[in-house]
């Protein structure tokens, strides 16, 4: 910034002024800068911008993953196939079902945990760490572990029976069509909630403590403090959390693939694009996924702008 301010008005002709020397230096600086940024930019072009562009382009072709013939443009054929594909609609319904249930539950549970580990009590750091352990555990490991626990005679049913003194009888969680999705939701929340606890926590810690002291003096109870200080203070965090959980929920894949139950949009795209090698049709499905994610991001934009 300092450099720009020191530049004299245009038309300084003498070659040896500090300004021209600075300009020469600026040219070298420009070259070095471009050089330093180029590895990252090149990688992003090849592995981000081109494939994103391809997603749009291939959706209008009949490209296959491995094919002796070059891809042909077939217009909107993939889209009409998509809209009359019952498997796709089922996958979309499952994905939305998952998102609609998981987003509020996970966000709420995470906030509760954040409040618990934000309290000024001894050993709070240990709780923070332990609640976070499932997050660093791979979702693949978590899925296979819970698949074992969800078996008809597995740990979950045994625990349910013991803890309820034989009142509650479990079910074959993953093979029961109505129970499978809730079981996967429960497991997903168990795994990921610690992540959003930490983000809520960083939001909570931006709220100045004096506000609570003042509220206490005015006789506000804990619920009023939460309602009028904590909740408004978390506005930015709230939007961020809702958007990240929603996008993660819409991306649901690993759990489904390992638990071998139902289908989701991303799962369907992988099955078609990789399993059946129909890259073009998979791109069309991916586009729908992209539109969903984009819609969520736009809603976020709208919500945060309203505040500004």
């Amino acid at each position, binding site marked *: 910034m300092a450099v720009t301010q020191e530049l004299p008005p245009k038309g300084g002709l003498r070659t040896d002024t500090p300004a021209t020397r600075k300009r020469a230096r600026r040219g070298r600086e420009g070259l070095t800068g471009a050089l330093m940024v180029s590895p*990252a930019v090149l990688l992003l072009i090849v592995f981000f911008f081109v494939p994103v562009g391809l997603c749009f382009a291939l959706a209008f072709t009949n490209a296959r993953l491995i094919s002796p013939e070059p891809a042909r443009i077939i217009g909107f054929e993939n889209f009409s196939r998509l809209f009359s594909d019952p498997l796709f609609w089922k996958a979309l319904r499952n994905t939305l079902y998952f998102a609609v249930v998981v987003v509020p539950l996970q966000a709420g549970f995470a906030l509760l945990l954040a409040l618990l580990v934000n309290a000024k009590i001894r050993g709070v750091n240990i709780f923070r760490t332990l609640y976070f352990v499932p997050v660093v555990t791979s979702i693949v490991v978590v899925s296979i572990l819970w698949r074992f626990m969800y078996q008809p005679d597995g740990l979950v049913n045994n625990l349910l029976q013991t803890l309820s003194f034989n009142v509650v009888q479990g079910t074959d969680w993953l093979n029961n069509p109505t129970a499978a999705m809730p079981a996967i939701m429960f497991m997903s929340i168990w795994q990921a909630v610690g992540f959003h606890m930490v983000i809520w926590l960083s939001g909570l810690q931006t709220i100045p403590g004096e506000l609570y*002291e003042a509220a206490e003096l005015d006789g506000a109870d804990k619920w009023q403090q939460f309602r009028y200080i904590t909740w408004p203070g978390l506005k930015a965090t709230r939007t961020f959390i809702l958007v990240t959980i929603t996008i993660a929920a819409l991306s649901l894949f690993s759990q489904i693939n390992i638990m071998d139950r139902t289908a989701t949009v991303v799962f369907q795209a992988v099955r078609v694009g990789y399993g059946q090698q129909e890259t073009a049709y998979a791109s069309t499905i991916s586009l729908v996924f992209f539109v969903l994610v984009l819609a969520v991001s736009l809603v976020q934009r709208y919500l945060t702008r309203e505040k500004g």
Partner: protein
Amino acid sequence: MTTLDQAQAPTRAAPATERTRRPGLRRAGGYLVRILLVVFFAFPLVFMFMSSLKPDDQIFADLSSIKAFLPVGDISLSNYTGVFDTVPAARFLVNSIAITAVTVLVGLFVNSLAAFALSRMTWRGSTVVLAAIIATLVVPFETFALPLVWWVNKLPWVLFQDGQFFYSTGWLDTYRVQIFPFLANAFSIYLFYSYFQSIPKTLDEAARVDGAGWFRIYRSVVMPLAGPAIATVAILTFLPAWNSYLWPLMVVQTENLRPVMVGVSYFLQQNVLWGQIMAYSTLITIPVLVMFLALQRQFIRSIASAGVKG
């Protein structure tokens, strides 16, 4: 503050006594809730580890009692040795360690270098490049994963062998296809960028007066001060690299090149040996868990910094 407190005290006398009578009980209740939550988050992992030490019939026999969470009965490491007979687990581990290490190290270099140029140097187009990089943050990997499989299958590669260049097409079934797509990362660049912005630019000017070039400033002035940013980016790159599943599932068919997470599916195809699965799951979780427990403050701070993105 104190005078105000005293002034308010008489009016709040009644609720205050009520509150002072309860804090002991309240605190105990608070701890109880928090400890129950620890149990809730820990029991599946404890169960996994304990089962990994038991023969299959004992795992099932222990399910109905507290023994499921205790190292009792016929305890041995035979599931662990069995794992290495069922899958090439050592090979998978070596692959994952290599892929993760290269992705993290090269990623740190490439992304910090780009962020340095964007944050500290004036050059034409830097704002456009920065805006384009930030814009990529809203697109999740799953959006373009399938077209990317098609695309990497068409990418060229040049091989130098026996004094000759060989030209080949297709990146499927390689190590590089598991590394290159994840090196440049917009979020890493963004994290480095915002951290570099907080380092005074007068330091650069002083170094320039002493005759240092830009790369020298990057290496000897800015990077030594960027420890927290380096830790954050390293952790945020390490986790997805170690845990990657969808991508290698699609692009790697050769057994020798597969990473640990894909190895899980081996156990599900044959007759299911739960003791071995639990042993394998423990084996591939322990490196991350140990690192997390050693660096838990940095881990949690890194995740929290992911929250500034919005």
